[in-house]
Every structure is written in structure tokens, then in C-alpha cells.
């Protein structure tokens, strides 16, 4: 049984995590890549009855997750995704971590090899406030989702929504759903189309699938 919405609200689950949760069928198998303290995993396991696993780089994050009864493996998404079997999960989730990967393209490719679908969220560098800060202040942006100074930010591969869509097209990845999200994680009411969202949305959430040709092992053959 799925937890009642009121109970979830009472636990104050982040809104963007709720949105991710809604994209996932109960009973499916999920790998949350870069799962942090396990907030999304916990929500998926307890509220959505999802068989969810995590991968997390930091020992503190893994400790926190294991202590919450979650199954989390310490690992580096850039290095360790290749070790997961093809099609092992229904969904591979990358929540607010895409921009911190060293090889973003390879990461995305791996996600759609491991998972039948991928769910990706990231801060939109095309957001108008970001553009304004660059244009008028001539400074690297400092927003709620991009809060690190340029010299020690983990966000090394920032992109706009349009950039990301283009990468998906290049790889032959289909976008099944797109959600624009504001800074607080709420679904943005002002950005229905991706083009408009590129300017108006602070964050973006994509549900992706690969419908192209696959090799004998079942792995996608990317363009």
C-alpha cells in the first residue's frame, strides 16, 4: 500500500523528490545514483513501496543511509556504474548530480543501460536569474540551486535545459516527460514548454527512455 499523501506531507518530503516518486511505478526497481543521506530512497521505499537501492560517494552519506535501513553502496558514479548489469533496474535516478559528474555523457549512457528508464534532475543554467547575474554583474551566478563559489563548486558540467535536450537527441534518448521546477522544488506554473522553461525554470526534471537499437547484451547502441 502506498502511504497517504497527508502522511508524506507531515514528514516534509522535498517537493522535487515527491515529483520523482510520482514518476515511478510502485513495485519497480530503482537505483538512486548520488543518493546523499537517502531522503529520496527513504521516500520511495516507505511511501511508494519501491525496491530502491542507492549509490553514494561520501562515507557519511552511506552511513546515514545504512543506519536508516536503506541498501546503499559506496561508489563513484563516474567509475562504478559500468559494474551494474544491463537492465538491472526499472529506473536509474540522478537527482541534482548530473552537473557534478566528470563524464556526464557517459553517465547518462550508463543510466539508460542499467535502467529501463532514467530520471534526471539538474539546475538550469539558462534560468533568467543566472543569465541576469552574468549579464549585468559579470559574475558567476549565485542562486539557491547554484550556491557554491566558482572555485570550489562540485558543479563542473552545468548546462541549460536546451543543452540537455540536445544531448538526449544526439544520443537517441527519448524524453518521455519533462517538468520545470522552481527553486523550492514545486512544479513551475509559468513554464509549460521546454523552450519557455529554459528561461523560466530554476530546475528541470526529465523522464528518459532509450527506444533505439540495442546490442546482443541488451545495451543501447547510442548514436
Amino acid at each position, binding site marked *: 500500500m502506498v502511504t497517504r499523501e497527508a502522511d508524506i506531507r507531515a514528514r516534509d518530503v522535498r517537493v522535487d523528490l515527491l515529483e520523482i516518486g510520482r514518476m515511478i511505478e510502485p513495485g519497480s526497481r530503482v537505483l538512486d545514483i548520488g543518493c546523499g543521506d537517502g531522503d529520496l530512497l527513504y521516500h520511495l521505499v516507505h511511501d511508494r513501496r519501491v525496491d530502491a537501492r542507492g549509490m553514494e560517494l561520501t562515507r557519511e552519506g552511506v552511513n546515514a543511509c545504512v543506519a536508516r*535501513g536503506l541498501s546503499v553502496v559506496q561508489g563513484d558514479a563516474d567509475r562504478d556504474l559500468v559494474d551494474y548489469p544491463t537492465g538491472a533496474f526499472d529506473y536509474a535516478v540522478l537527482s541534482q548530480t548530473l552537473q557534478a559528474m566528470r563524464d556526464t555523457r557517459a553517465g547518462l549512457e550508463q543510466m539508460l543501460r542499467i535502467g529501463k528508464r532514467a530520471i534526471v534532475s539538474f539546475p538550469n543554467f539558462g534560468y533568467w536569474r543566472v543569465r541576469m547575474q552574468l549579464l549585468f554583474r559579470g559574475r558567476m551566478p549565485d542562486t539557491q540551486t547554484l550556491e557554491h563559489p566558482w572555485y570550489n563548486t562540485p558543479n563542473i558540467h552545468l548546462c541549460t535545459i536546451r543543452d540537455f535536450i540536445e544531448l538526449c537527441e544526439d544520443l537517441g534518448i527519448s524524453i518521455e516527460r519533462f517538468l520545470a521546477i522552481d527553486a523550492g522544488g514545486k512544479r513551475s506554473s509559468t513554464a509549460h514548454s521546454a523552450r519557455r522553461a529554459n528561461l523560466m525554470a530554476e530546475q528541470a526534471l526529465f523522464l528518459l527512455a532509450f527506444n533505439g537499437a540495442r546490442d546482443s547484451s541488451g545495451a543501447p547502441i547510442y548514436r
Partner: protein
Amino acid sequence: MNSIALPHPNYVDARRQHGQDDDPRGSVLRLDAVPFRLVSGAELPEVTVAYQTYGALNAAKSNAVLICHALTLDQHVANPHPITGKDGWWESAVGPGRIIDTNRFFVICANVLGGCLGTTGPKEINPATGREWGIDFPVITIGDMVRLQAAFLDQLGIPDLFCVIGGSMGGMQVLDWAARYPERVFSAIPVATTARHSAQNIAFHEVGRQAIMADPEWRGGSYYGGPGPKAGLSVARMAAHITYLSEAGLHQKFGRKLQDRDALTFGFDADFQIESYLRHQGSTFVDRFDANSYLYITRAMDYFDLAADYGGLLANAFKGTQARFCVASFTSDWLYPTAESRAIVHALNAVAAAVSFVEFETDKGHDAFLLDVPEFYDVLRGFIGAAAEKRGL
């Protein structure tokens, strides 16, 4: 009350705990299901298991925890050791209110097959000859140790285990348990271990065995009643002990410090503290360990290659497992380095097992699994607590 009375004629006395009894073996059980057939095909006509228990089995028999001990350890997990008088080897983690809470769980640890503290091994009597087995004892495997533990638990009337936990060779047994008896393992914690002994692992063991067998007092394994190969066993222990520590740890603890002297002596006395330390490790070891047991148990570890038993693919060993796994390794462990644990995790991932994995930062080397590494204990507490909740304990 600390233990249960199990209605079995061969059940000696599970209340005889905490090392207060004169018998260093603790509790002893004679196996009913004999002869006990080994993986090699050989049979043991009689088998005895020496073990310790802590806590009480609940009515549902759902709270049993099996601790699998490492090469040179034994069943005295959480009571003073009857021979050395030292604390139990995992007393920091096992006891009332501790991570493996004996108020909550029924904790069992049995001396392994081939061991030398009461369970059938080369120093016990061969019923066919009336003399110690010596090297007539059949070669055993990790799988044999686990199969004996399962038969032993059958006889105790314990259907399945809430948790199987162990480090090093204990971890190998944990993996074998999970592979061999998936329906009897609710959660598994293999620590600082490997699914397969590497060439380097085998090499170090071979050095130890050759040291023992090169000692004239070994006498082809028939040294009982005599002094025994103390020098050889001591050297074996010294060599092995180096592999349990890290270079950084050794440097920090000993460096090039001299032992009770101000200058080098230009001789072969123990000038350096590390030499003195290793000699001490070697000489105290021979008082509590049997040289033939050392040969047999190291051989069992060398033969361990779990994937080989399952068509060469480690993932096959865990196919269909419902157990929850917590795999742990330590950064400075070069005996069973993190890569070995990762291989286990990959195999578990491949079969969609519920697996957690953490590598802990420490300079304590392989021995870290026996020490109170706070983050390690935090994770164990979290994992066991969550598993217990899942099991309704």
C-alpha cells in the same frame, strides 16, 4: 537468564558461559548426523563442535546470530579467553546493549572444523587409531566448516539465522552461508574478506606452512606429546601478522624505534621494537594454537573460491538470494583489499540483492575488523537495527 535449555541428549551445557568453567572448550556438542561427509569425499566418523552462546533464543527462534571466527580466533567471542585470560575477541561489539546486543539476540559462535579449541580437528583423537589425527586428518574447506555449522544448528533446533557475521575467514564463511543456505540467512555481514583467495594470499600462507613443516619438531605432523613445532608456528604467525597490519600503522607504532637499548648492537638480537613485537606475537601464539590446525585452516582458506563452485561466476552463487547484505572493507587492508569486497558487491548487484557497502578509512590494516573503528560500528549498528526491525525483533 542468559541461555536456553535445549532438549537434546547431546546438548552438554549452554549455560556454561563466560569462561568460568575449567573446560576451555566451553559448551560441546557431539554431532548426531555422522559420518560427516566432506567436500573432498572423505568422511569423519565422529564430530564434536565446541561453542559459546550468549543471550537467549526467543520463542519464534528468529533471533539467532551466528558469528564466524577468523583463522586464529575461536568461539570465545565475548568472554575472557580460557587460555590467555584476555577479553573475548569481539567483546567491544558483542554483549548486553552492544551492537550485537545479547539482550536482544541469541548469539552463537562455534570453533571451526579443523580448529584446535574443541571442535574436531587434527589434534583430536582419530577413533580409528585412538591417536591424534595429525596429518591423517582429511583436508577441509570453508564449505565444510559452514556445512558443519548448519548441521550443528540443526541439532540445536535453530532453523535459520537472523544474521551471519564474520571478518576475514569468518567473512568467507558468511559468503558461503549466504550461497549455500539462502533460505536460512536473513542478513549477512561479510567484513574485510574475499570471495576467492588470491595468489598473494596463498603465497603468504605457503610461507607459514613451510615454516611449520621445516621445523624438525613438526615430525611429519605427529608431534603430540612432544614439544611441537613451536619455532615454525611462531615464524608462521610472525609472517602472517605482518599481513594483518598496514605499513602506515607499523610506521606509526614502531618506526625504527629500538627495543630497550640506545644503539644498534651489531648482532641479530631484537634491536628494533617491531622485531620484539613480532617475536612476542609468535611466541604467545604457540601457547594457544595447534600447528597442524594452522596447516589445515590455511589450506581451507587457500581452496576458497566461491565462484568456482558456481560455474565460475560469483553472481551465480547468490542467485535468488533474499538476504540483506552489508559488505565492509578497510582502506589500509592489503590482505583483502577493498577491490575484493567490491567484487562481492558487483556480484550481489548482478542478482539484485539488497546490498550495502562501505569502505572505512583507517591505518589499522586488515586487523581493523577486530578493532573499535567508530564509523564501522555505527554502520553495523544501523544495519543490524534496521534488519532487526524488518524481522520484527
